């Protein structure tokens, strides 16, 4: 590739607004934990957050914290601490980074938000294994360490079609959590509050979907790398009005970009789909790598995983169960292939990159022949790159760069 002047993706102005609401969220959590004014629940990313909000918990998301450890490149120094107590370097590097950070008494929150000294101490830990088994093991460690209960939902995996039987199962499991959570919260569940939280989550999710779908435009006004940052409110503040208000602001900015013909990357010449986890410690480098190649990574499974069209305030618990089960990661390869093919078509994708994350088999969809099958059916070229979400020991920057440059060359030469 020709060595040219470096270009970077354009900054999204709404980021300042997002930073403020994220700061408010973290300070709110800290206040809850340090003053005891509100009970604190830890919840895995697609766990029953709406239920926890309806019961008045302040909700901390360990995966969000782990991603922060990755993005700040603290994780690689912390993972070995967890390895040393018996948690293998081959298991989830969110888990190992987060436990390592706890053992070392370190958190990126302390640096980003003066006055916060640690992650908020939980009163209860709540998981949903729809992501993976690791989240249950992760909460189990804290449960033993901190002497707080760990409860949750055990989800089916590799689901082709989400059936009533699946939904009944998970809905019953969610209902079964309620008495324990009521006991810890010290209040009875108000179904009206739950309906409201689920309705707000639905509204948030619809706006987030619209935000991501602005990338259908050419040039795309937003990249995957922006998405990984701006999904913050959809992850930690879904079920609240704050997230909805934020996405209205973000959406307006992106729609204005479309009207003005402004792309996130100058001179977009190729459109890429990212399948798999981000490499959190390499977001900036990867963003610059693609921008310099005039290539926009504009759509992804990862960012789209926080779209939950099934949330329904009229049937909160069953719709939560359905939404949590319809998640991409829960589904079979047959479903995943269909989903990816639809995304490739919708976003008019020129090439797809699969990130094979060493420590995250559940989000590495290149291991059972899926890329070859999708490529054979669509004719859209694919590339598998090896790396990891948080453990930079598993990342080879030079190999990634060579692979990506060669892939973009191939796309250009194939035209």
């Amino acid at each position, binding site marked *: 590739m020709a*060595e040219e002047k470096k270009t970077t993706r354009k900054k999204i102005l709404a980021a300042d607004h997002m930073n403020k609401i994220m700061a408010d969220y973290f300070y709110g959590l800290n206040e809850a934990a340090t003053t005891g004014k509100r009970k604190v629940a830890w919840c895995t990313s697609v766990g029953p957050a709406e239920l926890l909000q309806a019961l008045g918990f302040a909700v901390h998301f360990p995966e969000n914290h782990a991603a922060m450890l990755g993005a700040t490149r603290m994780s690689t120094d912390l993972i070995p601490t967890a390895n040393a107590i018996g948690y293998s370097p081959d298991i989830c590097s969110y888990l190992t980074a987060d436990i390592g950070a706890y053992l070392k008494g370190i958190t990126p929150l302390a640096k980003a938000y003066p006055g916060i000294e640690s992650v908020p101490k939980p009163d209860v830990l709540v998981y949903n294994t729809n992501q993976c088994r690791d989240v249950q093991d992760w909460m189990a460690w804290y449960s033993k360490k901190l002497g707080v209960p760990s409860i949750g939902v055990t989800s089916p995996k590799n689901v082709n079609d989400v059936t009533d039987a699946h939904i009944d199962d998970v809905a019953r499991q969610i209902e079964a959590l309620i008495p324990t959570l009521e006991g810890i919260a010290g209040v009875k569940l108000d179904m009206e509050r739950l309906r409201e939280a689920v309705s707000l989550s639905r509204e948030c999710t619809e706006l987030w979907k619209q935000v991501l779908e602005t990338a259908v435009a050419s040039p795309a006004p937003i990249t995957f790398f922006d998405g990984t940052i701006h999904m913050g409110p959809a992850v930690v503040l879904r079920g609240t009005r704050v997230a909805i208000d934020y996405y209205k602001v973000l959406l307006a900015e992106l729609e204005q970009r479309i009207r003005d013909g402004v792309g996130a990357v100058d001179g977009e010449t190729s459109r890429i789909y990212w399948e798999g986890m981000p490499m959190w410690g390499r977001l900036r480098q990867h963003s610059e790598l693609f921008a310099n190649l005039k290539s926009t990574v504009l759509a992804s499974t990862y960012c789209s995983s926080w779209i939950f069209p099934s949330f329904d305030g009229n049937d909160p618990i069953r719709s939560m169960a359905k939404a949590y089960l319809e998640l991409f990661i829960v589904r079979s390869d047959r479903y995943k292939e269909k989903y990816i093919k639809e995304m490739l078509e919708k976003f008019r994708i020129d090439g797809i990159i699969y990130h094979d994350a060493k420590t995250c088999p559940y989000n590495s969809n290149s291991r059972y022949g899926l890329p070859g099958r999708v490529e054979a059916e669509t004719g859209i070229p694919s590339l598998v790159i*090896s790396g990891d979400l948080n453990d930079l020991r598993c990342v*080879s920057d030079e190999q990634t760069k060579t692979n990506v440059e*060669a892939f973009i060359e191939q796309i250009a030469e194939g035209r």
Partner: protein
Amino acid sequence: MSTPVFVGLDIGSSRTKVAVIDADRKVLGHAVRKSGTDFSATAAACLDESMEMAGSRRDGIASAISTGYGRANVAFVTTQSKTEIGCLSRWGRERFHEAITIIDIGGQDNKVIKLDQDGRRASFKMNRKCAAGTGAFLEEMSLRLDIPLEAMDALARQSLEMVKLGSYCTVFSATEVLENIRHGKKVTDIVKGLFYSVVKRVLEMDSPAGRVVMTGGVVAHNPYIVEMAGEMVGQPVVLPEFPQLAGAIGAALYALDETDPIGIRNNIPAGETDG
């Protein structure tokens, strides 16, 4: 000013290769040296050596393209670069007018590149972040066995009873080699086992399609690997002329394309020999 020439510089992790071609795509000069720790100095020395062989001077360079890990370290001659995969594809497109699979075994990377019958790159794969099957693997094993790298090919050919090595990890393979030494296995049989391991590793990266061509320094110095690969894929595998220079020649062809945008294909003598 001397006759215009076109230069490709392939600054690899292990060796730096330079090729000089003329407007008729004929290789006039070439050089290979250890990349060492000063990529620029090594590339400059290789360039001067190959220019001298070509009977040309630096002011005769019409265009140059770099490739390889050190591709950004040769600003003294060019700031234009292409990936090794691109250069190998460009080379393959020039030399073979049919669907081919290029298997390149380098010092640190293996690449399997498929070109369709029109010379378009259909796909490529690089090895994972693992030295299995690369030149680095053989270098490590030559140290373990205390034999020079250049002696390996002749030793492997003498083997009567190849030792099979099961692991794809270089460290585990080294342990297996030590275990075989302890059990009194012959060095010739162990070396053939190492070659077999290299071929297996690259063949499991992708399934070959069309004619199979092998390039890179490892096969340049160990042509027995190409013969073994031929047995394993069930067809003769092509070992081209200048296998180690394929990437550099591809880069030089790109340099020529820049000044000859029509990209007229002049068939240069194929020169390949069936391995």
